[in-house]
């Protein structure tokens, strides 16, 4: 027996005019201030950087870009990538666990509201304030450090790691974890309890549920969020600047140093080229992020 297919269903093949239709409307007018803002403070500087990277003291040149292979510059970028990747992974794993704990609890509980608003604040916590908070507690003369030292525990027995790359991972975790909670929570909320129950009635257990249902559904969101954390850490500047005074340990500090150094004053094109490399790395990451977000958006509506 064949059943008539519901005629009210529009097949997806129904074509949509390119560019969303010919209808002119004034909706976009409201977006003008925002677009102007983006243009002025994002696109324009990017363009200036991109152009500046190809300008030397004697006009158009590729010298700035070829200068990027100097050991100390390469070192900074590698450090930046490693720092961003490690802090993104740490933030993603712990943030996801926290978000899971929150998402599986009562949606109206005080705990949930507390955690989400705290994350909203902490995700923005950075720069000098954050650096100071760490210096004041576990810095060289920090409260906790001294207290521990009095009891014979020296957290810096193997070097003052707080002021090195390793320290930055710890400090960055402070805003990466809350950011992960904020970004990942909507994906977890999109997971419906019926899916677990359907898995169970179909004969699957917890492992099957995670392996075939929740895992595949959350993976794109998780990866996407991790990429976002990567970009976030990669481009962070103020926290590192406040905490670390030794040279060009990461890319953002490198650019700042280049701008104020002899070389930079002489040739701002070098700094532009460094900035361009950063922009390109972040752009690649953000494109990947956007793709993943789009993929999940269809599933978890």
């Amino acid at each position: 027996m064949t059943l008539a297919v519901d005629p009210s269903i529009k097949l997806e093949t129904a074509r949509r005019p390119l560019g969303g239709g010919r209808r002119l409307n004034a909706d976009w007018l409201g977006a003008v201030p925002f677009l102007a803002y983006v243009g002025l403070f994002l696109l324009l500087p990017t363009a200036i950087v991109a152009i500046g990277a190809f300008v030397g003291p004697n006009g158009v040149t590729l010298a700035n870009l070829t200068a990027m292979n100097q050991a100390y510059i390469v070192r900074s970028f590698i450090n930046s990538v490693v720092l961003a990747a490690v802090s993104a992974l740490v933030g993603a794993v712990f943030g996801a666990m926290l978000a899971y704990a929150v998402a599986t609890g009562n949606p109206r509980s005080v705990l949930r509201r507390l955690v989400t608003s705290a994350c909203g604040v902490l995700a923005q916590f950075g720069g000098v304030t954050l650096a100071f908070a760490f210096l004041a507690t576990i810095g060289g003369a920090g409260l906790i450090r001294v207290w521990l030292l009095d009891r014979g525990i020296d957290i810096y027995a193997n070097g003052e790691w707080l002021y090195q790359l390793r320290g930055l991972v710890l400090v960055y975790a402070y805003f990466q974890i809350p950011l992960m909670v904020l970004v990942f929570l909507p994906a977890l909320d999109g997971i419906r309890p019926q899916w677990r129950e359907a898995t169970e009635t179909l004969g699957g257990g917890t492992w099957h549920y995670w392996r075939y249902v929740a895992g595949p559904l959350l993976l794109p969101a998780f990866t996407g969020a991790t990429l976002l954390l990567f970009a976030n850490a990669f481009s962070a500047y103020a926290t590192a600047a406040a905490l670390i005074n030794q040279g060009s340990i990461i890319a953002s500090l490198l650019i700042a140093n280049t701008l104020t150094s002899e070389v930079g004053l002489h040739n701002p094109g070098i700094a532009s080229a460094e900035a361009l490399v950063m922009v390109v790395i972040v752009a690649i990451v953000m494109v990947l992020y956007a793709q993943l977000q789009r993929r999940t958006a269809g599933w978890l509506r």
Partner: protein
Amino acid sequence: MAATSSPSATARSTRGGVEVRLEDLRRRYAGVTALDGLSLTLAPGELVALLGPSGCGKTTALRLVAGLEEADGGRVTIGGADVTRRPANKRDVGMVFQAYSLFPHMTAWENVAFGLQMRKVRPADRRRRAMETLELVGLQGFANRYAHQLSGGQQQRVALARALAIQPKVLLLDEPLSALDAKVRARLRDEIRRVQLEVGITALFVTHDQEEALAIADRVGVMRSGRLEQLGPPTTIYARPATPFVAEFVGLTNRLSGLVRDGSVEVRGTRLPLVQPDAPDGPAVALVRPEAVTLSRDGEAASGPLVGIVIATAFLGALSRVTVDLGDVTVLAQLPTSEAGAHAAGTRVRLALRPDPVLISRED
């Protein structure tokens, strides 16, 4: 796809169904008694609809049978085997949820094949059986669609196919139609019934829609506060409700005050027999079905306890429902639309109450 002689051979092989018993099921949630000793036996291959108002425990009953919730007391047996302590994934039940239960990252056929995968069926067989089951629900052309590319009604059909593909011993449906609009709803309801009969599976169908329950079920169980108020075939439930609660929940009723005397009740000058003639004498409210009320055009000057003015007419297709204002009370009458046309709003009419046995209520 390999052709098979009978498209639904796989799903149909469970024909016959098994007996399912719910015995004195009890379940409490922090202070709320969701189930208060529910007992119900489904005959093999029977479709029983559980009907009742929101919060009466229908979903809880279903979830206890599925094993998604644990009973505080009582037993569930499926085909003679006590499954009360068995986890959901060992119970062999097919469950259709209210909505949005398809795995969104799998296509229709992958959804249907999922249960077979859990049962370690070979990939090739999985696909074939999934396709057959999709054909059973009329969706063979939609195998490669994702849930968000299907209408609500189609999604529910896929969900039905997914539940049936594992050849469960019992099919459980928790308001599977309530998220759909009226037209799709009626059609899918009949579709579910057709498939259930074709497969021959024992099924428990939960709904709060009395029309749906009466239309689909072999027997309807009306629930109230965690227990069964009445269980019987749709016609009995409708025509011979055992309690005022059932009468009012299943279909519309007029509540007319009257006086019980000698096993009958006198309502506005008309004597009506009682369903339970041993009721003690005294004032009571008689529950009179709209279809037991007839209308006649009377002289403009007519008067009496059953004379009133038509204030509204609702057309329901072949039947119409006329609202008549008797002054102290309004009464609903249901009659063929051809007759209702004669009684426009504002007309003075005389009502007559057909002497069907009525239930009485003394609640107010």
